[in-house]
């Protein structure tokens, strides 16, 4: 069968697009808070104020005439990332891993001239990658160094960890691994591998590429079964803290592990997608329901992360899973 039965999906607690838009985003994410996460520069400043580690900001460009200063700005840096401030879905991100005799090298080994980079910056400034084509700004960040734990699991890129944070509680996590098919980008649409991660342990649960189950990384052939993400507690706490930072109830936090600086936040998303359910082979609805039934939200991100670890642990749960009352059964009643 190519189609799943809606009753079955509902009984597994899978949330669909319509329900995500109506039940989660428009309900828990006040519109006026969106700019905090849609504007990556604002997010970064906010995170720095809250004491959360973020990639170092090397420079920003706001106007077309700033492009002339690009050469000076880039001179001291061997490696850097150019991003649109209001880009979405990883669009318009240019990663340079080596700078050699006025040639700039992408992770794939392709060489770019300074003029190519200037054109890319102009495109970003004129709004090519921003939502609705509005004029945009450019930010240049330090390059994240691949943590050796992932070196067997990534191809020409940095894997990131998407954690869904609901009312401050991390409820589901996924590791996104770059592949040859995804052109070194951690974008599931383009063929990155999504690995569901157990909130309780940081262990890999199950992996998918293009919506199909995979058992090992397509490029490195490394199996996922023994993949455990280090610094898992810290990652959960960082993600949980994003709620206090932004006030968004349904939030996707994108984190990375830097070889030198450890866990850091690279991006926040007010409209996180639903592919995470496929990667985890589990629905979001039961977990959302558990948090919704809580009487009060713990003010401490650390204890919220701890609660989630206890509650959503899949493999060695200290307590048997509770019988759940999901929102969809709420609606059916």
């Amino acid at each position, binding site marked *: *069968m*190519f*189609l*799943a*039965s*809606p009753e*079955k*999906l*509902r009984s*597994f607690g*899978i949330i*669909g*697009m*319509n*329900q995500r838009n*109506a*039940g989660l985003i428009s309900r828990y994410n006040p519109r006026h808070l969106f700019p905090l996460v849609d504007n990556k520069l604002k997010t970064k400043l906010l995170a720095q104020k809250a004491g959360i580690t973020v990639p170092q900001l090397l420079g920003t460009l706001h106007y*077309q005439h700033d492009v002339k200063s690009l050469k000076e700005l880039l001179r001291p840096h061997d490696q850097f990332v150019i991003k649109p401030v209001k880009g979405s879905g990883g*669009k*318009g991100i240019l990663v340079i891993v080596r700078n050699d005799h006025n040639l700039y090298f992408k992770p794939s080994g392709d060489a770019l001239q300074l*003029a190519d980079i*200037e*054109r890319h910056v*102009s*495109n970003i400034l*004129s*709004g*090519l*990658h921003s939502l609705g*084509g509005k004029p945009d700004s450019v930010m240049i960040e330090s390059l994240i160094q691949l943590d050796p734990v992932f070196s067997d699991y990534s191809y020409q890129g940095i894997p990131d960890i998407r954690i869904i944070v609901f009312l401050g509680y991390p409820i589901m996590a996924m590791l996104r691994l770059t592949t040859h098919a995804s052109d070194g980008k951690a974008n599931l*649409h*383009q063929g990155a591998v999504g690995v569901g991660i157990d909130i309780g342990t940081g262990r890999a649960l199950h992996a*998918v590429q293009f*919506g*199909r*189950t995979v058992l090992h990384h397509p490029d490195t052939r490394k199996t996922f079964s023994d993949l455990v993400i280090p610094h898992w507690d810290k990652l959960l706490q960082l993600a949980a803290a994003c709620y206090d930072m932004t006030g968004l109830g349904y939030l996707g936090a994108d984190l990375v592990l830097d070889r030198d600086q450890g866990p850091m936040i690279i991006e926040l998303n007010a409209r996180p997608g639903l592919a995470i*359910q*496929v990667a985890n*082979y*589990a*629905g979001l609805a039961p977990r959302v329901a558990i948090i919704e039934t809580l009487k009060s939200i713990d003010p401490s991100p650390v204890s919220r992360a701890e609660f989630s670890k206890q509650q959503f642990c*899949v493999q060695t749960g200290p307590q048997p*899973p509770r019988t759940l009352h999901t929102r969809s059964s709420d*609606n059916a009643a």
Partner: protein
Amino acid sequence: MHSKLKLYVLVALIMALGIGLIAYKHFALGFPLLPDDKKSVWTIEAKIDFVARGDPVIVSFALPAETPTTVIMEEDFASSDYGFTELSTAAGRRAQWSKRAASGHQTVYYRVSEYETDPLAAPPPAADLPTEPEKPEFDEVMKTAATTLLDQVRSKSANTEIFTRELITSLNSDTPSQTQNLLLNEKPSEDYKTHLIINLLALEGISARIVRGLYLEDGRRRQSLTNFVEVYIGNRWLLFNQNTGKIGKPDDFLIWQRGDESLLDVVGGKNSQISFSIIKNVHPTRTLVLRDSMNKEAGIIDFSIYSLPIEQQNAFKMILLLPIGALIVVIMRLLIGIRTSGTFMPILIALALIQTTLLTGIVIFLTVVGTGLLIRSYLSQLNLLFVARISAVIIVVIAIMASISILSNKLGLDQAMTVTFFPMIILSWTIERMSVLWEEDGPREVFVQGGGSLLTAIIAYLFMTNRTVEYLTFNFPELMLVNLALILILGQYTGYRLSELYRFHSLERRNVSGKP
């Protein structure tokens, strides 16, 4: 939950208002629900001939009455040199032509166009109550014959209706008895027969009156009126055919005059004659009803799109189709889950398709967008700024469209000429979006979103060009309210989209095999 209830109340109100207005227009004003609904309009010309004697002339002529089932569209009293007035008398409308002095052969015309409608409700009890029938004066012989016949008929009938019918049939019997022959004379005239029936009924204490009318048949000339008998039974007037006894008004029969008033009076003339000729025309019901409603100044019509100049009405014809397109887009995106580039781009493409017809439109769309994408990819190498680039694309699009037009003209294909109507900005923007999509998400996403947009546009096009849909949206703008209510309901839908059943279908298998 509270806000949800409010929404449902709102939806119910909007829906009820929309459907109510549609029902009112359909049932009360007679707007047909289908575009092909047609009605026969009869144009009847009465020609009155007489010879004037040189004195003042007054011609008085009974006119047909407008009833709930008969709508008079137009009347014309064309007669040169005659003064004309229309009089309302207790017995109905009369036309009066007059002249100080006339001599020789004279003709006056009366022309009327009318059509029949279905009455909304059962006719109310007759307002024109009959007077107590006067006992007719028969001589002894006749009186005996009448009593005999009435006794016979009475013994065979159970109520007034059957009594009347029996009386008429026995008078029209092929093998008349002596009594019948005596009553009818030799070869009785129509008028004599009518009055005989009325008199016999009066003898029985039943009120009846004469009705004159015209059988409507296309292309007939020199017709005269036919007599019917109308009998007052149980608070209603019932029409009887005096030659067959059949009850009820025949189809295509216009009642011209009721009661015993004269049909035509000519003062100052002689040898007056009247003849009718009949022509049938077929008109769309909508046109007739609209005209009638306008005349009656029905508020809902008077303050509607129809009161606008024709040019603007045509614009609205198009605009009123947009909500249908919007509904299709909502269904395709929320229920089916098709991805389109831009939320309402498909509607704009559908509008463009309407201008060009489907197949030509698709071919042109694909050609222009395809060529545009190629050129756009070249432009992107030129290191241009975004606004300059999209402007350049617009110019290129115009050039492509011009070449298609010229080429098709040289090849003798008229159809492709309509390309000029294709909204250029839409095409340029489509090209720009698609090429960005191509760079960012690869060609697959371009085909998914481009195909999704085109598919949605084609479905919207098929609905928007459907004759019935077009007719209904323009003639019942209230449909917009129904449409709005539907969209509000769809906006509440939080279930799965069809595409998600596919997207998550692998999950189903896994869960069946026993994992959490």
